[in-house]
């Protein structure tokens, strides 16, 4: 199977029942233990289906506001207590997300920690990264590293579990955005001669992040091709986004209307496929320009679509630029205690499914 027809299913439980029967071994789940109630959803689902996975918890800290009623702390404590149900392969990996000057360092630190225990990881037939409770700046470098290691040194099968919950996502908002930066673990252009075809994957009304990234690459950006969501369950979403972002998209970034792509974001592989196609198209079209032309991705939509962008970036050696969030605000703390019953999406990222 080629990646363009990548494997994913929304039937997480039945997939894993079958898979564990096949390989005869429970998977390892790598999950965050922050305040997000989705953090351990895949482990919970497996546990409730009678599969007891091994767990590798990631203990990271972000600044969060809106904890006046203690709901944030309570949600974090719940997650931390819940991990005791599982057999952990190590104590939670404690990850500093930012350095003393507020720069994002979490991705590099996490990869280093994982590298130190990789022999343990190699013994598993399947590894699931549950991205529900992990920030993009942690799970993207981790995915890149493990995809790389799957090819080169002993990781067998890599999966991602993702649970988009728009209601919950809308309640957790970025309060402070850091300066944008090339993401660790992906290609990093250094020369000033580089030109970019920029693909911002937009799913939220977040003009500040869009503007910040654009300001950073403005001089090198020769074309902007935003990818916008096209969802059957909310057909007005795209119109609303364009209305909200029209100033930054058309007046500041000066995007051409016919450069906008509309993709069903619910499948990570639609996004993946579009990026691969755009990358191929532009490398042919612009090959005669002086300096190198690269497709630059900025995943700003939900985490599921980011998975597709990350896989494309690893495969095509594309840089990712992202403005990380240093602090979050939870608008309504009660939402954190609401029980989540939905199954996460199972996305098979690397391994047997793609071998000839």
């Amino acid at each position: 199977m080629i990646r363009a027809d990548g494997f994913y299913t929304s039937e997480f439980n039945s997939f894993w029942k079958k898979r564990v029967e096949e390989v005869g071994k429970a998977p390892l789940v790598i999950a965050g233990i922050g305040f997000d109630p989705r953090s351990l959803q895949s482990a919970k689902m497996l546990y409730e289906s009678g599969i007891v996975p091994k767990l590798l918890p990631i203990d990271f800290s972000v600044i969060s506001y809106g904890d006046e009623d203690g709901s944030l702390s309570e949600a974090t404590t719940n997650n931390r207590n819940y991990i005791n149900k599982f057999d952990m392969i190590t104590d939670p990996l404690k990850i500093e997300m930012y350095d003393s000057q507020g720069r994002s360092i979490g991705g590099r630190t996490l990869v280093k920690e994982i590298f130190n225990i990789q022999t343990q990881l190699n013994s598993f037939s399947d590894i699931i990264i549950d991205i529900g409770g992990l920030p993009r700046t942690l799970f993207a470098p981790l995915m890149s590293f493990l995809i790389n290691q799957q090819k080169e040194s002993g990781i067998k099968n890599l999966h991602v579990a993702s649970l988009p919950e728009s209601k919950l996502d809308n309640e957790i908002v970025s309060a402070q955005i850091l300066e944008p930066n090339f993401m660790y673990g992906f290609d990093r252009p250094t020369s000033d001669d580089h030109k970019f075809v920029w693909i911002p994957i937009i799913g939220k009304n977040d003009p500040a992040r869009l503007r910040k990234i654009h300001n950073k690459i403005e001089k090198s950006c020769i074309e902007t091709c935003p990818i916008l969501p096209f969802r059957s369950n909310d057909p007005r979403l795209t119109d609303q986004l364009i209305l909200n972002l029209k100033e930054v998209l058309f007046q500041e970034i000066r995007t051409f209307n016919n450069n906008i792509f509309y993709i069903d974001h619910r499948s990570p592989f639609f996004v993946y496929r579009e990026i691969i196609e755009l990358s191929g198209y532009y490398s042919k079209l612009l090959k005669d320009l002086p300096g190198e032309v690269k497709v630059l991705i900025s995943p700003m939509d939900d985490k599921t679509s980011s998975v597709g962008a990350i896989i494309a970036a690893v495969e095509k050696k594309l840089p990712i630029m992202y403005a990380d969030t240093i602090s979050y605000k939870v608008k309504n703390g009660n939402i954190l205690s609401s029980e989540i019953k939905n199954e996460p999406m199972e996305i098979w990222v690397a391994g047997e499914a793609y071998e000839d």
Partner: protein
Amino acid sequence: MAYNFKNPFLSRFSDRTGLSNSMFLSMYAPQIVRKLLNIEHLLLPKATWLIGTPGSGKSSILRLFGIDILIDIVRQRSTYPHIYDVLSEAKIIEDDIIKSIGLYIQIDELYAETANVSISGISNDQLFNTLFDIRVAKKVIHTIESYNNFKSISNSEIIIRGVESEQFPPQIFANNQTIDQFKKKVYEKESLIAGLLNSFPGAPLPKNLELHNRISSLDLIQEQKRSQDVEFFLMIDDSHDLYPSQFKILKTVLEKRNSFPRWIATRKHIYPIAALLGSGSNATDEREVFTLDLDVVLNDTSLYKKFIKILVDRRLNFTSMLNEFTSENIEAMIAKEEPVDLDKAKIAIEQQKDEAKKLASKFKYQVPDFDVYFKGKNPTSIEGEIFLIKAYRTSNKKQLSLFPELEAKNDFAYSEAPSKDRHAAELFLKKRLKIPLYSGFDNIISISNNNVEQFMRVFSPFIDRLIYRVEINKNTSILPNEQFKILRNIVKNYINNVILRLYLGNNIYQLIQNLGNYFQLRSYEPNAPHAPGITQFAILASDIYKIKDEKFRAKPWIKKLSDILTVAISHNILIPEQSVKQGAAGSELKHPFSLNRLLCVSFSLPLQKGDFQIIPIELLYEMCNRHTKPDEIKKRKASKQLTILDDL
């Protein structure tokens, strides 16, 4: 395609390093650069530290001297005559010949990566030195190439001179070579370093990567000076983004004697409190090092106002909504307060009479009767306000006058009142009549605290309002009441989006709330004892010593207070003023700090420089941590007792 922003005052263009040269130049208001270039130290072969708060214009100043911008200024002299003239006066350009070029190096996030990566057998300092050298070399290549091409000299004729062997240069800088050969090597090396910094743990080390044990690129610049008929100066921007150990390495190298000027721009926040509480003058000079505080340079109201007006005119060109307007039109649309109308004035005078009557009944020997005083005259409401202030002052005197009839009646006259009292009276009257305290373009400039970023923050919502009015084809004037509402919103956003997001932001917020309420109480005392009001607090020299001294800083509460003040000062929330000796002979020196004028709006304080109140550091620390009532602050000003637990 021409740029068209709906509101061009929303963007911080200095942050947009990718901005095209033409747009950068079209926006440029060179008044401040002209003033800077008059400071002779800047073009001497010294290390000059340009320090300032965010928005003080550091990056905009440095970027002007890069080769690409200089070439554009010369080529389009008739488009940018105002900039050409400034550079010409400073002899950067002479008769269309470029005489000096700045090598602009921006410290970006890759430098931080050199400290974060851990690769066995490689020291992080070596990586830092190598990256810095390569970045400077790249800038040297680009500058020499562009400069020579500008003079129609082709690359094949350009030789990059190698660094003398006694300087122990790395191999890449060791020999003379053509610019194309050098360029190839430098670019390859940069790519290898970037790959290394971005590699996963366990990845093999690149072969043929020679790391630099020391920074050698300054020697490289020096060598090129010998072969090129142009002067270079090195400009480092955003050096505050380096880790302290990297900063130390760079500082040592840049402050060493050299034959060309080095300008290093940095935000104030990297400076410890001791440095931030400096002399208050704009510059300190040592033999090889010169420090220039840009905030103090900008603290020249008439220069700043000129600069702002030109900046407004330039930015208006970038919006089709308002491009028919000039700064003068806009100044007229942001209306100043209207004169007090007759009806309101009558009400005010009646109130003042009543107040004066009550006062006179208590202190009839000293306070003249309002009606008697103004008999035969038709007092204005502001005269009435001055009368009251003075009447309260008289009534507050502890001793009765032996000969009240001999006291000069003119003491109560408006015409005799000093300007501070008049300002206080104006404020009191506006309060009495519930007239907005701040209105007009000049007040917006005052509120911006001589900081360009703050001006944009304050001015852009007014532009939003104008655009909205233009869109719906309505009267574009913004009346004082509306201005007041807009200002309130700006303050709210400033607190929520700037102050509260800072490190120790909650403590800073608590402190300014307590200070603001206290200043308000004291400013509106009826006898206006501190006219035009209180806008500053002061720390005694002995307390400053404790904050600065390492021994005292071992106490957690002093350390924390020092950190809070450092963050607040470096972000322009509190502004250190020149220390004063005010008080009894031999009394201690006082170090006053002004509240940012935008915050003065929140507490209805005057925009003029007000008086100060001394606050002991123990009380100040408490004010950072809990709500403190103004009366309590007034009562406890002399106290040295720390009432909350020292539990840090």
